[in-house]
Protein backbone atom coordinates (compact mmCIF):
# COMPACT_ATOMS: atom_id res chain seq x y z
CA UNK A 1 0.00 0.00 0.00
CA UNK A 2 1.35 3.39 -0.99
CA UNK A 3 0.56 6.14 1.46
CA UNK A 4 0.09 9.71 0.30
CA UNK A 5 1.26 12.90 1.99
CA UNK A 6 -2.21 13.62 3.34
CA UNK A 7 -2.28 10.15 4.91
CA UNK A 8 0.81 11.00 6.90
CA UNK A 9 -0.71 14.37 7.83
CA UNK A 10 -3.81 12.55 9.09
CA UNK A 11 -1.66 10.24 11.23
CA UNK A 12 0.34 13.24 12.47
CA UNK A 13 -2.90 15.00 13.44
CA UNK A 14 -4.01 11.95 15.39
CA UNK A 15 -0.66 11.71 17.20
CA UNK A 16 -0.79 15.44 17.93
CA UNK A 17 -4.16 14.90 19.64
CA UNK A 18 -2.62 12.13 21.76
CA UNK A 19 0.29 14.41 22.72
CA UNK A 20 -1.97 17.37 23.50
CA UNK A 21 -4.23 15.33 25.76
CA UNK A 22 -1.23 13.66 27.44
CA UNK A 23 0.30 17.01 28.33
CA UNK A 24 -3.02 18.31 29.58
CA UNK A 25 -3.87 15.22 31.59
CA UNK A 26 -0.56 14.30 33.12
CA UNK A 27 1.25 17.61 33.46
CA UNK A 28 -0.10 18.69 36.83
CA UNK A 29 0.51 15.40 38.60
CA UNK A 30 1.75 15.40 42.17
CA UNK A 31 2.16 12.68 44.71
CA UNK A 32 -0.95 10.59 45.07
CA UNK A 33 -2.64 11.77 48.21
CA UNK A 34 -6.31 11.55 47.48
CA UNK A 35 -8.85 9.43 45.68
CA UNK A 36 -11.15 11.46 43.48
CA UNK A 37 -14.44 9.77 42.70
CA UNK A 38 -16.70 11.17 40.01
CA UNK A 39 -20.18 10.08 39.11
CA UNK A 40 -22.97 11.82 37.20
CA UNK A 41 -21.56 15.28 37.77
CA UNK A 42 -20.70 14.83 41.46
CA UNK A 43 -17.20 14.64 42.84
CA UNK A 44 -16.03 13.11 46.11
CA UNK A 45 -12.48 13.44 47.36
CA UNK A 46 -11.08 11.20 50.12
CA UNK A 47 -7.57 11.04 51.58
CA UNK A 48 -5.77 7.85 50.58
CA UNK A 49 -4.28 7.19 54.03
CA UNK A 50 -7.61 6.80 55.81
CA UNK A 51 -9.32 3.45 55.49
CA UNK A 52 -12.91 3.66 54.36
CA UNK A 53 -15.43 2.04 52.09
CA UNK A 54 -17.39 4.29 49.76
CA UNK A 55 -20.57 3.22 47.99
CA UNK A 56 -21.57 5.23 44.93
CA UNK A 57 -25.02 4.86 43.46
CA UNK A 58 -25.10 4.67 39.66
CA UNK A 59 -27.71 3.73 37.08
CA UNK A 60 -27.10 0.00 37.59
CA UNK A 61 -26.69 -0.05 41.35
CA UNK A 62 -23.96 0.51 43.90
CA UNK A 63 -20.27 0.59 43.07
CA UNK A 64 -18.11 -0.15 46.11
CA UNK A 65 -14.74 1.54 46.39
CA UNK A 66 -12.20 0.59 49.05
CA UNK A 67 -9.78 3.32 50.06
CA UNK A 68 -6.86 2.99 52.45
CA UNK A 69 -3.15 2.25 52.80
CA UNK A 70 -2.33 4.78 50.06
CA UNK A 71 -4.46 2.96 47.52
CA UNK A 72 -7.95 2.94 46.08
CA UNK A 73 -9.70 0.03 44.41
CA UNK A 74 -13.14 -0.84 43.12
CA UNK A 75 -14.09 -3.96 45.06
CA UNK A 76 -17.53 -4.47 43.58
CA UNK A 77 -19.70 -3.00 40.86
CA UNK A 78 -22.96 -4.12 39.22
CA UNK A 79 -21.51 -3.97 35.71
CA UNK A 80 -21.53 -7.13 33.53
CA UNK A 81 -17.82 -7.41 32.78
CA UNK A 82 -16.25 -6.27 36.11
CA UNK A 83 -13.30 -4.68 34.34
CA UNK A 84 -13.17 -2.01 37.05
CA UNK A 85 -12.77 -4.68 39.72
CA UNK A 86 -10.15 -6.53 37.69
CA UNK A 87 -8.22 -3.28 37.23
CA UNK A 88 -6.94 -3.70 40.80
CA UNK A 89 -5.80 -0.95 43.16
CA UNK A 90 -4.38 2.38 42.00
CA UNK A 91 -1.99 4.60 43.92
CA UNK A 92 -0.10 6.95 41.59
CA UNK A 93 -1.32 10.31 40.31
CA UNK A 94 -2.96 10.03 36.91
CA UNK A 95 -3.96 6.41 37.42
CA UNK A 96 -7.64 5.74 37.03
CA UNK A 97 -10.31 3.09 37.20
CA UNK A 98 -13.55 3.55 35.34
CA UNK A 99 -16.78 1.64 35.54
CA UNK A 100 -18.42 2.92 32.38
CA UNK A 101 -21.68 0.96 32.64
CA UNK A 102 -22.37 2.33 36.10
CA UNK A 103 -20.85 5.74 35.31
CA UNK A 104 -18.27 5.82 38.09
CA UNK A 105 -14.73 7.08 37.65
CA UNK A 106 -12.00 6.93 40.28
CA UNK A 107 -8.65 8.60 39.86
CA UNK A 108 -5.75 9.55 42.05
CA UNK A 109 -5.15 13.22 42.56
CA UNK A 110 -3.07 15.26 44.91
CA UNK A 111 -1.02 18.40 45.21
CA UNK A 112 2.64 18.61 45.98
CA UNK A 113 5.89 17.55 44.41
CA UNK A 114 5.99 16.12 40.90
CA UNK A 115 6.43 12.38 40.76
CA UNK A 116 8.89 12.67 37.91
CA UNK A 117 11.45 15.45 37.39
CA UNK A 118 10.95 15.38 33.66
CA UNK A 119 9.52 13.18 30.96
CA UNK A 120 10.70 13.19 27.38
CA UNK A 121 9.36 11.36 24.39
Amino acid at each position, binding site marked *: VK*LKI*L*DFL*AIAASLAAVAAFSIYAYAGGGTGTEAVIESSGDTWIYPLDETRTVRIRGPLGETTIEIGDGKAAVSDSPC*PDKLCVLAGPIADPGQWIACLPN*GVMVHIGGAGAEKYDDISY
Partner: protein
Amino acid sequence: VRKNTTTYPISKPRDPVAFFGALCMFLSTVEYLIPKPVPFLRVGIANLPLLLGLYVLSPGQLFLVALLKIFGQALIGGTLFSYVFVFSALGTAAGLSVMLAVRYSGSGRLSAVGTSVLGALASNLTQIALARVMILGKGAWLIAPPFLAVGTVTSILLGLFAETFQRRSKWLASVKRSLES
Protein backbone atom coordinates in the same frame (compact mmCIF):
# COMPACT_ATOMS: atom_id res chain seq x y z
CA VAL B 1 -30.37 -13.36 -23.29
CA ARG B 2 -27.04 -11.62 -22.93
CA LYS B 3 -24.16 -13.88 -22.10
CA ASN B 4 -22.01 -13.07 -19.11
CA THR B 5 -18.43 -12.99 -20.30
CA THR B 6 -16.68 -12.19 -17.03
CA THR B 7 -14.45 -14.93 -15.73
CA TYR B 8 -15.09 -14.37 -12.03
CA PRO B 9 -18.37 -14.80 -10.19
CA ILE B 10 -20.70 -11.85 -9.88
CA SER B 11 -21.81 -11.03 -6.40
CA LYS B 12 -25.08 -9.21 -6.38
CA PRO B 13 -26.43 -8.70 -2.89
CA ARG B 14 -30.14 -7.98 -3.20
CA ASP B 15 -29.83 -5.21 -0.65
CA PRO B 16 -26.28 -3.94 -0.13
CA VAL B 17 -27.33 -1.93 2.94
CA ALA B 18 -28.63 -5.06 4.68
CA PHE B 19 -25.53 -6.98 3.64
CA PHE B 20 -23.07 -4.38 4.92
CA GLY B 21 -25.17 -3.97 8.07
CA ALA B 22 -25.03 -7.70 8.68
CA LEU B 23 -21.27 -7.58 8.18
CA CYS B 24 -21.08 -4.87 10.87
CA MET B 25 -23.09 -7.07 13.22
CA PHE B 26 -20.85 -10.07 12.59
CA LEU B 27 -17.70 -8.04 13.15
CA SER B 28 -19.23 -6.54 16.33
CA THR B 29 -19.53 -10.09 17.61
CA VAL B 30 -15.90 -10.77 16.79
CA GLU B 31 -14.93 -7.50 18.50
CA TYR B 32 -16.97 -8.49 21.56
CA LEU B 33 -15.03 -11.76 21.82
CA ILE B 34 -11.63 -10.07 21.90
CA PRO B 35 -10.49 -9.72 25.53
CA LYS B 36 -9.90 -6.12 26.62
CA PRO B 37 -7.51 -5.15 29.40
CA VAL B 38 -9.19 -1.76 29.89
CA PRO B 39 -12.83 -0.83 29.25
CA PHE B 40 -13.84 0.73 25.98
CA LEU B 41 -10.49 0.33 24.27
CA ARG B 42 -11.62 -1.19 21.02
CA VAL B 43 -10.06 -2.44 17.83
CA GLY B 44 -12.94 -1.00 15.82
CA ILE B 45 -13.26 -3.82 13.31
CA ALA B 46 -17.02 -3.27 13.23
CA ASN B 47 -16.27 -0.06 11.33
CA LEU B 48 -14.61 -1.93 8.49
CA PRO B 49 -17.84 -2.27 6.44
CA LEU B 50 -18.34 1.51 6.71
CA LEU B 51 -14.79 2.11 5.52
CA LEU B 52 -15.13 -0.31 2.60
CA GLY B 53 -18.64 1.00 1.92
CA LEU B 54 -17.14 4.41 1.15
CA TYR B 55 -15.95 2.94 -2.11
CA VAL B 56 -19.19 1.31 -3.21
CA LEU B 57 -22.20 2.77 -1.41
CA SER B 58 -23.83 6.20 -1.53
CA PRO B 59 -23.68 8.49 1.54
CA GLY B 60 -27.36 7.79 2.25
CA GLN B 61 -26.81 4.05 2.13
CA LEU B 62 -23.78 4.43 4.40
CA PHE B 63 -25.80 6.24 7.05
CA LEU B 64 -28.35 3.41 6.95
CA VAL B 65 -25.51 0.89 7.39
CA ALA B 66 -24.23 2.98 10.32
CA LEU B 67 -27.71 2.85 11.88
CA LEU B 68 -27.75 -0.95 11.54
CA LYS B 69 -24.25 -1.08 13.01
CA ILE B 70 -25.22 0.98 16.05
CA PHE B 71 -28.26 -1.16 16.83
CA GLY B 72 -26.56 -4.45 16.00
CA GLN B 73 -23.62 -3.61 18.23
CA ALA B 74 -25.94 -2.58 21.05
CA LEU B 75 -27.87 -5.84 20.82
CA ILE B 76 -24.70 -7.92 20.89
CA GLY B 77 -23.08 -5.96 23.70
CA GLY B 78 -26.32 -5.61 25.66
CA THR B 79 -25.81 -1.84 25.79
CA LEU B 80 -29.00 -0.71 24.06
CA PHE B 81 -30.40 1.04 27.14
CA SER B 82 -27.22 2.38 28.65
CA TYR B 83 -24.83 5.31 28.37
CA VAL B 84 -22.65 3.22 26.11
CA PHE B 85 -25.32 3.32 23.42
CA VAL B 86 -25.20 7.12 23.22
CA PHE B 87 -21.40 6.96 23.00
CA SER B 88 -21.53 4.38 20.24
CA ALA B 89 -24.26 6.15 18.27
CA LEU B 90 -22.75 9.64 18.30
CA GLY B 91 -19.20 8.29 17.88
CA THR B 92 -20.17 6.30 14.81
CA ALA B 93 -22.14 9.22 13.34
CA ALA B 94 -19.20 11.61 13.82
CA GLY B 95 -16.70 9.11 12.40
CA LEU B 96 -18.80 8.39 9.33
CA SER B 97 -19.50 12.08 8.68
CA VAL B 98 -15.79 12.88 8.74
CA MET B 99 -14.92 9.90 6.54
CA LEU B 100 -17.55 10.95 3.99
CA ALA B 101 -16.26 14.53 4.02
CA VAL B 102 -12.71 13.26 3.54
CA ARG B 103 -13.73 10.85 0.81
CA TYR B 104 -15.66 13.41 -1.24
CA SER B 105 -13.51 16.50 -0.69
CA GLY B 106 -10.05 14.99 -0.68
CA SER B 107 -10.87 12.28 -3.18
CA GLY B 108 -7.71 10.63 -4.43
CA ARG B 109 -5.39 12.57 -2.19
CA LEU B 110 -5.95 10.27 0.79
CA SER B 111 -5.90 6.50 0.89
CA ALA B 112 -8.18 4.46 3.13
CA VAL B 113 -5.47 4.80 5.81
CA GLY B 114 -5.82 8.58 6.17
CA THR B 115 -9.59 8.31 5.90
CA SER B 116 -9.71 5.66 8.61
CA VAL B 117 -7.39 7.60 10.94
CA LEU B 118 -9.42 10.81 10.64
CA GLY B 119 -12.68 8.92 11.09
CA ALA B 120 -11.39 7.21 14.23
CA LEU B 121 -10.07 10.51 15.58
CA ALA B 122 -13.46 12.19 15.09
CA SER B 123 -15.28 9.25 16.67
CA ASN B 124 -12.93 9.09 19.66
CA LEU B 125 -12.90 12.84 20.28
CA THR B 126 -16.70 12.80 20.23
CA GLN B 127 -16.77 10.00 22.78
CA ILE B 128 -14.26 11.75 25.05
CA ALA B 129 -16.34 14.92 24.89
CA LEU B 130 -19.44 12.88 25.79
CA ALA B 131 -17.59 11.20 28.66
CA ARG B 132 -16.57 14.62 29.92
CA VAL B 133 -20.13 15.97 29.79
CA MET B 134 -22.16 12.90 30.73
CA ILE B 135 -20.44 10.84 33.38
CA LEU B 136 -16.78 11.02 34.10
CA GLY B 137 -16.21 14.73 34.59
CA LYS B 138 -12.62 15.92 34.47
CA GLY B 139 -11.46 12.31 34.81
CA ALA B 140 -12.32 11.87 31.13
CA TRP B 141 -9.13 13.74 30.24
CA LEU B 142 -7.08 10.98 31.89
CA ILE B 143 -8.63 8.36 29.65
CA ALA B 144 -8.13 10.44 26.52
CA PRO B 145 -4.39 9.81 25.82
CA PRO B 146 -4.42 5.98 25.84
CA PHE B 147 -7.83 5.93 24.15
CA LEU B 148 -6.63 8.15 21.29
CA ALA B 149 -3.27 6.36 21.03
CA VAL B 150 -4.88 2.95 20.67
CA GLY B 151 -7.34 4.45 18.18
CA THR B 152 -4.50 5.80 16.06
CA VAL B 153 -2.79 2.42 15.85
CA THR B 154 -5.90 0.34 15.19
CA SER B 155 -7.25 2.82 12.63
CA ILE B 156 -3.96 2.69 10.70
CA LEU B 157 -4.13 -1.12 10.66
CA LEU B 158 -7.79 -1.13 9.58
CA GLY B 159 -6.98 1.48 6.92
CA LEU B 160 -4.13 -0.62 5.54
CA PHE B 161 -6.43 -3.62 5.36
CA ALA B 162 -9.25 -1.63 3.73
CA GLU B 163 -6.92 -0.06 1.15
CA THR B 164 -5.52 -3.44 0.13
CA PHE B 165 -8.93 -5.09 0.13
CA GLN B 166 -10.53 -2.25 -1.79
CA ARG B 167 -7.91 -2.53 -4.55
CA ARG B 168 -7.70 -6.29 -4.84
CA SER B 169 -11.11 -7.68 -3.96
CA LYS B 170 -12.94 -8.96 -7.00
CA TRP B 171 -15.96 -9.40 -4.78
CA LEU B 172 -16.07 -5.71 -3.85
CA ALA B 173 -15.53 -4.76 -7.48
CA SER B 174 -18.43 -6.95 -8.53
CA VAL B 175 -20.68 -5.45 -5.84
CA LYS B 176 -19.75 -2.02 -7.13
CA ARG B 177 -20.53 -2.99 -10.72
CA SER B 178 -23.84 -4.55 -9.77
CA LEU B 179 -24.84 -1.33 -8.00
CA GLU B 180 -23.80 0.85 -10.92
CA SER B 181 -25.63 -1.16 -13.53
